[in-house]
C-alpha cells in the first residue's frame, strides 16, 4: 500500500506553520495535602501545523498527563493551553466534549474501535456525534482517505474481522476524517509488530507533512520517535530536552541518559 495521504483543505484557524496548540507554564496536580502528586510542573510546548512531535519519557514522567491536557481530555491545575488560538484551560466538560469532537482526532494503542460498528460506521462516527452526516465534499475526502489507506474493500467488516494493522488504519482514518486541527496518538504502535508499526508511523508522518495536521504522539519506543520531526523528552513533570529529527539510536541514548540522571 502507499503511504501517501490526500491533501484536504485547511481546517480551523491555524495558518501554514502557525501554532495549533500552545501550552504555557502548564502544571497538573493530583490529590492534595501529603498525598499530592505533581504530574506536570510547568511545561511549555508549542506544536505547529504540519509538525509531527513525539513526546517521550520514562514511566511517571508526565507524558500521558501532558497528552490528556493537550487533547482536552482533562484540565490543567494551572497554566494556559491555547488550541487554535482558543483558551481551553478551565473549560467545562460539555465545551471540552464539543472541542474534542470538532478539533481533535485520536489514535490509541488498543485501536479502540467500536466493536458493534463496521469500518465505515467507525470512520463516520465523529460526524454522527456532531449530529450531521459528512457534506458531499467531506464524503469525497473520506472516500479518498479510505482508498489511500487500503480500506475500500473492508468497509463493511467489523473490527474483529480485521488484523491489528488494519484496525489501526481504520483508527487513523477515523482520526483524520473530520480534518481536525490536532491528531493525538497514544503509543500507536504498542500493539503492532514492527513492520505494521512502521507502516502506521509513516501514515502519521504523512498526516502531518502531506496533510498539514499537527500530530502529537506519546511513545516509549525509540524507533517510533525516530519518525517524528521533533522529539520532546519529559522527566519528573518537566521538559528536559528537545531535539529535531533523531535516529532511533540517538533517542535510545538520550532516554538512557534520563534514566541514569534520576
Amino acid at each position, binding site marked *: 500500500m502507499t503511504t501517501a495521504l490526500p491533501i484536504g483543505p485547511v481546517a480551523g484557524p491555524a495558518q501554514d506553520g502557525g501554532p495549533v496548540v500552545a501550552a504555557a507554564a502548564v502544571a497538573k496536580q493530583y*490529590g492534595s*495535602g*501529603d*498525598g499530592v502528586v505533581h504530574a506536570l510542573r510547568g511545561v511549555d510546548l508549542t506544536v505547529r501545523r504540519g509538525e509531527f512531535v513525539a513526546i517521550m519519557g520514562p514511566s511517571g514522567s508526565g507524558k*500521558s498527563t501532558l*497528552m*490528556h491536557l493537550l*487533547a482536552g*481530555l*482533562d484540565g490543567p491545575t494551572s497554566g494556559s493551553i491555547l488550541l487554535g488560538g482558543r483558551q481551553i484551560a478551565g473549560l467545562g*466538560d*460539555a465545551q471540552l*466534549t*464539543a472541542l*474534542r*469532537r*470538532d478539533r481533535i482526532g*485520536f489514535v*490509541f*494503542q*488498543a485501536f*479502540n474501535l*467500536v*466493536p*458493534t*460498528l463496521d469500518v465505515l460506521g467507525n470512520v463516520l*462516527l*465523529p460526524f*454522527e*456525534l*456532531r*449530529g450531521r452526516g459528512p457534506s458531499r465534499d467531506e464524503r469525497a475526502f473520506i472516500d479518498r482517505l479510505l482508498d489511500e489507506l487500503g480500506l475500500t474493500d473492508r468497509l463493511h467488516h467489523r473490527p474483529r474481522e480485521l488484523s491489528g494493522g488494519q484496525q489501526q488504519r481504520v483508527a487513523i482514518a*477515523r482520526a483524520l476524517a473530520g480534518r481536525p486541527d490536532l491528531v493525538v496518538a*497514544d503509543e500507536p504502535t*504498542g*500493539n503492532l509488530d514492527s513492520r505494521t508499526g512502521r507502516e502506521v508511523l509513516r501514515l502519521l508522518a504523512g498526516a502531518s507533512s502531506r496533510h498539514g495536521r499537527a500530530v502529537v504522539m506519546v511513545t516509549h519506543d525509540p524507533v517510533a520517535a525516530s519518525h517524528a520531526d521533533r522529539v520532546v523528552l519529559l522527566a519528573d513533570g518537566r521538559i528536559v530536552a528537545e531535539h529535531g529529527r533523531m535516529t532511533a539510536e540517538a533517542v535510545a541514548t538520550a532516554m538512557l541518559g534520563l534514566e541514569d540522571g534520576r
Partner: protein
Amino acid sequence: MSAVATASRERRRRRSEDDGPGHASGIAVAALASAFGVALLQGTGLIAAAVGADPVTGSSGTVAVLLRLTGLVFVVIAVYASAVVTTNTFAVVVAGRVRMIALRRLLGATAAAERRAVAREGLLVGAVGAAIGLVAGTAAVAALFGAGRALGALDGTAWSPADPIALVPAVGVLLTTWLAARIGSRRVLAVTPMQALGGAEEASEEETRASRVRSMIALVLVVLGAGLLAVGIGIGSTDASGLLIAFAGGVVSFNGIVLGAHLVIPRTLRLVGRLTGSSPTARLAAENAVRHPVRSTRSTVGLLVSVTLVTTFGVAIRTFGDMITAASGADPLYYAGVDAALNLVTAVFSVLIGFSAVIAGAGLVHSLSLGVLQRTRELGLLRALGFTVQGLRRMVLAESGQLVMTAVVLGLLLGTVYGWAGAHAMLGASPGMPGLLFIGVPWVLVAVVVAGGLLLTAVASVAPSRRATRVSPVQALGAD
C-alpha cells in the same frame, strides 16, 4: 485522614467496581421471590382460617385446599421467573470475573473446582435470599393478622405463622437459585489460563451457539402447541372440553417460545431497535442490545413470561365477559354486575402474576449494569470522540427501553392470542355465542402494561446510567 488511607480506600472502591455487579441483585431476586411466595401461602392460610371460623362456609375444607392450590400456581410462576433471572445474574457475575478466574487457573486451579466455587456461592445467595423472604413474607401476613384482630374483623380466627407450607417457596427458591447458579456458571469451564496474560480486551461473553437440537425442540413444541390450540378451539365450538386441549396447547407452545427465545427475541430486538430512530445514540443502543443475544434474551424472557401471562388472563376474561354479555342480549344491569366481578378478578390476577415482572426488572438492571461495566473503554472512547454525558444517558435509556419494549410487545401479542383462544375454547359451544373473530381487549390493562414498561425502562436505567456517566474519556486511553 492520611493520604495513604485515602489512597487505599480509593483503591478498594475501584476494585469493588471492577469486580462488577456482585451478588446483591442475586440475593434481591431470591428474597423477592421467596417473600412473595411465603406471603401468598401464609396469606391463603390466613384466609382459609378466617373462612373456617365462619359457621356457614367453614364446614368444608375444599375452600382451603383450592386457595392453597391457586396460591401455589402463582408461587411457581414467581420462582420460575426468579430462576431465569438468577441464571443470567450468575452468568454475568462470572463474565465480570474472567480475569480473576483465568489467573487462578494459571496458578493451578481446575476448571471444575472454580465452577463448584461459583455454585457454592449460588447456594449461599439462595439461602440468604430465601431466609430474608421467609421472615419478610411471614412478617407481612402476621402484621395483616394483627391489624385484622385489632379491627375486630378476625375474631375467632386461629392462625399461627408457624405453618410448614410456608417453607415450600423458601426451599424452592433455595434450590432453584443453586441450580441457576450451576447453569449460569457453565462458562467458567470456557475460561482458559491464557486469558490472564492477555491485554485488557472486553471480557467477551461466549455466546453459546444455540444448539440445533434446542431450536428443533422449540420449533416442534410451538408447532405442536399451535396445533393443539387450533384443535381445542375447534372442539370448543361444539363441546366445552376443548378448553383442556387448548390449555395444553397453550402451555406446550409457550414453553416452545421460551425455549426458542434466543431465535425470537434478538430478531424482535433488532426490529424494535430500528423503530427507535436513526440517531447515533439510538443506533449504538440498538447494536448494544443485540451484541450479546444470549444475555439480552435471558434478561427479557422473564419479563416476556409475566407480560404474556397477565395479558392472557386479561384478554381471556375480557373476551369471556363480552361473549356472555353478547349472548345474554346485553341486559345493561346484568352486564354491570359481570363487568365489576371480572374486573376485580383481572386486577387480582394481574397483580399476582405481575409480581414476577418486578423480579424480571431486577435482572434487567443487573444485565444493563454489566453491559456498561464491560464497555468502560468503549464508553470512554465515545466520550473522547465527543459523545456528551447526556448522550451516554440517552444511550443507556434507549437500550433499556428496547429490551423492555421487546418483551412488552411480544408478550401483548402472545397473550392476546392465548386469551382469545382460551375464551373461545371455553364458551364456543354455548348457545348464542358470537363468532370466532370476536375478541375483547382489556384496554385499561394494556395501558397499565405499557405504562409499567415505560416506568421499568426509566427505573432500570438509573443505576447503569450513573455508572456510564462516571466513565472519564481518559479511561479509553489507559491500557488498564
